[in-house]
């Protein structure tokens, strides 16, 4: 009873002209920030905090939240159209999304990704609304052993991301993990592979590597032959997905929403993890998994939905208990505290007008974003009409500025360029980049949580199977591992063909 009354009151707050305006600004800014490579939601939120000084707390958080999930909508645009991940969560979308653009189906990809984001976003707000207090406590039960268990599962899924054989994907994963160890070891303070270069103390940033390897690598390799590229004549019909594509997207969207929401709860890089787990799951469930990487709509629908739905999940520990699990929610917490609000376990009961106002505004925001993004599909597609000769210098410049704007570090620019060269080389050698980039994140996280767990248990490995959560997750990993073995030993017709072709 109370519940609906609260929600109703929330909508009344959220629908005030003032708050709708702020929501709109947040969403618009978020989309812009998501589209521009390099600048992610975190930077966007930090940039706008001073603008919130003069507004009330509810309005402030409505605007900042709008930036947060708005960025997830925008990030897919550059990923699909230009193979440049707008921010870390959009990396997976590049893989099949860009291929779809090359085939002329870019409009459909953008369309479905907007709808997927909408549905995922709304479902996760629903989950947030109903389950926040319960799940918040659950989220704190995830300690290092549990996180490690999740990551092992993710790692096994990583292996199935590549388009080639296991032996081609594995070295890239190893390479990514190895590069991830560069920097100061957070558990002992020892410097690894830094050779007196202070900029390396924190390791190699994910954003410059992803942007470089995908975006700049793509530009370098497409400028090899000629600078005249196929300009896709955009017909209106091409903007919309075919019925077949729509039908194929339903499953991934639903699954992505669920996955994203759950993974969003977990501490750490929820968005990246959720988008790639969704991709891997879709690939495993598809009838022709080897087509993934050539432009399958499921490879776009799933990850895009998942990364939006992860925002809802990520806000649960923050709103429910007052512990932010990621940098973006941490900044939102600071913004609230500047307004004198203390998010904590009592937040929902003590500040219902803020909480419910926020929830209602998230529904509204998702709606605004859908309306914003759909026409933008047409506009962005028209951007593709711009001759490549003019477009690519701009893309280069934007990538460079985007990276610099986040960290103000010339070193990051060098990493960007270096990854571009690396991406270019590996593209020529026919190796997949996605597993490499994701391993860059997952590797160090795995090592970290593994060693942390052992530090807690003073060296006893039993910590890994001492509670139901870890048991379930490890059980799942074993099953997955066995499934992988079986399916690789029982080749399908297409893998036989490929094996013969590869020589």
């Amino acid at each position, binding site marked *: 009873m109370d519940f609906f009354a609260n929600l109703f009151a929330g909508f009344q707050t959220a629908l005030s002209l003032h708050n709708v305006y702020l929501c709109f600004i947040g969403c618009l800014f978020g989309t812009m920030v998501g589209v521009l490579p390099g600048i992610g939601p*975190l930077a966007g*939120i*930090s940039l706008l*905090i*001073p603008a919130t*000084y003069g507004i009330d707390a509810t309005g402030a958080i409505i605007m900042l939240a709008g930036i947060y999930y708005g960025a997830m909508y925008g990030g897919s645009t550059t990923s699909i159209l230009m193979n440049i991940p707008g921010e870390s969560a959009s990396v997976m979308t590049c893989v099949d999304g860009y291929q779809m653009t090359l085939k002329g189906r870019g409009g459909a990809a953008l369309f479905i990704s907007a709808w997927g984001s909408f549905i995922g976003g709304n479902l996760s707000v629903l989950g947030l609304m109903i389950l926040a207090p319960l799940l918040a406590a659950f*989220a*704190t*039960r*995830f*300690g*290092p052993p549990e996180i490690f268990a999740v990551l092992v599962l993710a790692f096994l899924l990583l292996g199935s991301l590549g388009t080639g054989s296991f032996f081609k994907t594995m070295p890239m994963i190893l390479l990514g993990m190895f590069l991830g160890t560069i920097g*100061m070891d*957070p*558990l*002992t*303070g020892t410097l690894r592979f830094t050779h007196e270069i*202070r*900029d390396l*103390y*924190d390791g190699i940033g994910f954003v410059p590597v992803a942007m470089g390897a995908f975006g700049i690598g793509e530009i370098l390799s497409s400028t090899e032959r000629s600078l005249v590229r196929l300009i896709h004549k955009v017909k209106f019909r091409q903007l919309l997905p075919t019925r077949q594509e729509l039908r194929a997207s339903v499953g991934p969207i639903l699954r992505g929403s669920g996955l994203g929401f759950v993974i969003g709860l977990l*501490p750490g890089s929820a968005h990246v993890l959720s988008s790639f787990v969704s991709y891997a799951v879709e690939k495993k469930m598809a009838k022709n998994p080897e087509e993934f990487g050539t432009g399958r709509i499921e490879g776009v629908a799933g990850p895009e939905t998942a990364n939006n739905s992860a925002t809802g999940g990520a806000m649960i*520990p923050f709103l429910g*208990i*007052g*512990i*932010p*699990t990621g*940098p973006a*929610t*941490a*900044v939102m*917490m*600071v913004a609230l*505290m*500047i307004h*004198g609000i*203390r*998010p*904590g*376990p*009592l*937040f929902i009961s003590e500040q219902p007008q803020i909480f419910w106002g926020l929830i209602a505004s998230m529904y509204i925001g998702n709606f605004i974003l859908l309306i914003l993004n759909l026409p933008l599909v047409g506009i962005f597609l028209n951007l593709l009409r711009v001759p490549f000769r003019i477009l690519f210098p701009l893309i280069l410049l934007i990538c460079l500025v985007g990276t610099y704007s986040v*960290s*103000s*570090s010339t070193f990051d620019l060098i990493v960007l360029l270096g990854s571009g060269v690396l991406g270019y080389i590996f593209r020529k050698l026919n190796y997949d980049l996605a597993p490499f980039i994701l391993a860059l994140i997952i590797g160090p996280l795995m090592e*970290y949580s593994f060693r*942390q767990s052992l*530090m*807690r248990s*003073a060296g006893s490995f039993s910590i890994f199977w001492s509670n139901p959560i870890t048991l379930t997750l490890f059980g799942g990993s074993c099953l997955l591992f066995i499934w992988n073995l079986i399916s690789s030993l029982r080749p399908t017709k297409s893998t036989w063909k490929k094996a013969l072709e590869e020589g």
Partner: protein
Amino acid sequence: MKRVKIFGLVACFLFGLTSWAGGAEYPTRPITMINPMPPGGTLDLQSRAFASVAEKLLGQPVVVVNKPGATGMIGGLAGAQAAPDGYTLTVGSVNLTNAIEWEIANGRKPPFTRDDFIPICSFTLSPTLLIVNPDSPWKTLADFMKEAKSKPAQLTFCSGGLYGMSHLPIEIFAKATGLKFRHVPYSGGGPCLSAVVGKHVDFGMQYPPTSLPLVRGNKLRVLAVVGKNRLKSIPDIPCMKDMGIDAEYYGWVGVMAPKKTPLPVVEKLREVAKKVAADKAFIDLIEKPGDEVHFLLGDELTKYWDVESEKIGKLMVELVKEAPKK
């Protein structure tokens, strides 16, 4: 040391004269404050609070920019190397001291030192709180210490990062009481709090703004304040001094300018800082989350900083010696 400072001040004055001849009254453009910590922490909160009030008094926007990395070293270096014109300031904190002393203790030359900065002011001096999970059996500090004594090196604690603001107070406490604990480093205050709430570790030490809301919500219990005085917001909790333990550690947040900043600019900033610290809006912003305003101006801060650096320096050297080397 003192001679260098006087010489420095004279040089600044002369330098200041030349820049006076140049232009209009400072500030004429927006001011940047570099925050060497990642966004979302106590430094972020308090420096943004400062910025929001200071910009009204200065008449120019004051923008906090995050430049995280290497526990404050990257941002600190950027701040130390910034142009000394008063338009790029650094959010100073005890983290600077930690970073500098850590490098020195490890036999490396730190990328910057205290001399690279002119302290403008500091506005908080927050002690840490010893927090445990409310379901744990220890209701008072005495209970806790008794158990710790009977089980040496078995109780676990979390910190937000190795040799950082939430690790050092625990080491200080351990040395003052002769107790031994096991350290599980986490990355950041948030995960650390989460660990205590989720019962993954036995205790931790965190700062009031982030811990107190959890205490009110019954997710955490505070056993002691690691400092010389009790906190206004939790008057029933004893402080270390009450218990006769010589352990104190304060996280302070303040504003620094690069070392060659002209004197008139420094004076103006200090003046504004004093006004900000007395401003009701600012005080509210700091006290509402549970902290207290504790203002140190210019030379007072320098003195405090020197004393603190010596203490922390010694601690770091001991810790490095004790660290396992294989």
